[in-house]
């Protein structure tokens, strides 16, 4: 059995599997092959374990970190708190400020130079200053994640709000809409795709932000654990930590994608059709309840 063979002939086509299952089977086969080759190369001494530990060693480190010793849970929890607290606070601040600035042209003119200066400053360079001010604990990490998560939602919300179609504004005006109604029923939903894109960017940088903040100076968190294992050359555990963070990053990315699809349903044909059917059913049952 070889990788080349698997690529040439889709696995499972002869076994009556569906194309999706056949693809999954092929990918698993490729992955299994890589792991087996990697393990074999490690055992034969072809790979320096300080550079890349054997898969079996990484699995053993995983079991120790999360089952037998279980010391990683605490650090993972700390990092998660930093990531989510920082993300929510930072993006809420970003979106809120963008709405204020978006609704008020005078404020916009006044704020612009400050926003440009802040945007030009590499956020992470402010990290050590924040730690000096707030200490080594997790509060300073949350503040750093907030800073990292502020800009993308801010900039996107603002540009989303300012790019609202002039014709739609005129239509709202002709219907006698108040300023609040224009904001609530036109600008905000219209900016939603942009806001979500900003939030996805923010969420992606939140995890990196928390880790870098922990690298700078901290007593707890996955960044600390990773740094600690690297400095003692415990590469098995280092890789187990890294894989944890990969899984975490993937989960975060996927959930943001799902939330995006739900909130901005009108940008996809399939989702729009599903939402339309649901609303039609709700309307119909309401009509039946009224006895119409």
């Amino acid at each position, binding site marked *: 059995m070889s990788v080349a063979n698997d690529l040439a002939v889709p696995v499972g086509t002869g076994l009556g599997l569906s194309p999706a299952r056949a693809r999954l089977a092929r990918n698993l086969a490729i992955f299994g092959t890589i792991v087996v080759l990697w393990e074999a190369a490690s055992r034969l001494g072809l790979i320096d374990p300080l550079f890349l530990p054997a898969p079996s060693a990484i699995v053993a480190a995983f079991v120790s970190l999360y089952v037998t010793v279980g010391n990683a849970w605490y650090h993972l929890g700390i990092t998660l708190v930093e990531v989510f607290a920082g993300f929510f606070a930072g993006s809420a601040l970003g979106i809120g400020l963008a709405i204020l600035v978006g609704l008020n042209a005078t404020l916009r003119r006044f704020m612009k130079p400050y926003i440009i200066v802040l945007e030009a400053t590499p956020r992470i360079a402010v990290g050590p200053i924040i730690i000096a001010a707030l200490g080594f604990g997790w509060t300073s990490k949350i503040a750093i994640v907030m800073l990292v998560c502020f800009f993308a939602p801010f900039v996107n919300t603002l540009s989303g709000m300012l790019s609202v179609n002039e*014709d739609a504004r005129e239509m709202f005006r002709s219907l*006698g809409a108040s300023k609040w109604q224009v904001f609530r*029923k036109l600008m905000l939903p219209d900016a939603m795709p942009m806001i979500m894109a900003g939030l996805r960017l923010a969420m992606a940088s939140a995890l990196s932000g928390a880790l870098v903040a922990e690298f700078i100076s901290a007593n707890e968190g996955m960044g600390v654990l990773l740094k600690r294992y690297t400095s003692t050359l415990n590469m098995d555990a280092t890789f187990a930590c890294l894989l944890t963070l990969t899984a975490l990053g993937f989960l975060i990315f996927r959930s943001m994608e799902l939330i995006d699809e739900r909130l901005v349903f*009108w940008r996809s044909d399939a989702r*729009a059709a599903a939402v*339309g059917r649901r*609303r*039609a059913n709700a309307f119909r049952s309401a*009509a039946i309840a009224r006895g119409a």
Partner: protein
Amino acid sequence: MNSIAIDRSSAAARPVPARPRVVGGVSAGETVIEARGVTKTFGDGSVVALEGASFEAKKGEFISLVGPSGCGKSTLLRIISGLIPKTGGSLSVHGREVTEPRSDIGMMFQKATLLEWRTAIENVLLPTELQRRVTADDKRRAAELLHMVGLKDFEFAFPRQLSGGMQQRVALARLLQTGADILLLDEPFGALDEFTRERLNVELMRVVAEVGGTTFFVTHNIQEAIFLADRVMVMTPRPGRLAKIVDVPFERPRDLSIQQSPEFNALVSEVRDVLGGH
């Protein structure tokens, strides 16, 4: 797809606007719009977009505004709607001077400007929603209007699922949902293809007659202007001016075939002569 479970026969007898009319007991033939020397200038007054337009409109009349770009037809329509202020003259609708957008005056634009996150029926309900709480009756009315403009079974489609013509039909239903009896249409089907436009024009005539609205229809197509209207206001550019008002004697509703008649062509020539000098 299924239609909504509502009783359409009883609904048809219900009065049209959900909102009270400004003037009670309006009789046919009553003057509802009176314009005297309506003028619009820009800057220090040197750029004249519209120069002294005077006209009247009777209840239920269909009036076309035709002319090349820059003749001030859209400007005039926006002044009637209250979207932009005039710089001179007087303009009253239902006996009240127009100074801002009003609930008795509704406007429809060249672009459908539907909210893409709302279904067709939710788009139609927008005008009501901006004024007060939406009731079950409002929803029924919105469904009827969608039915009236030929969109039965599309109540819960999102704009992206509708063609350009269907989107304009939703916009028309939304205009009627306002309950306004002065309907201002700014090249409403101008972005659509010829065939769709012709069909929608015929339906538009039927629908506005059904709701009894007084209609102003802006277009740059002479045939279309004459075919739809009781009177055609012919406008010329530099400066924007109301050059002539042409009466169209054909009975409504009309059939597309009248466009082949000699009388129709005589009217086309008359309008073209007015525009010809420009």
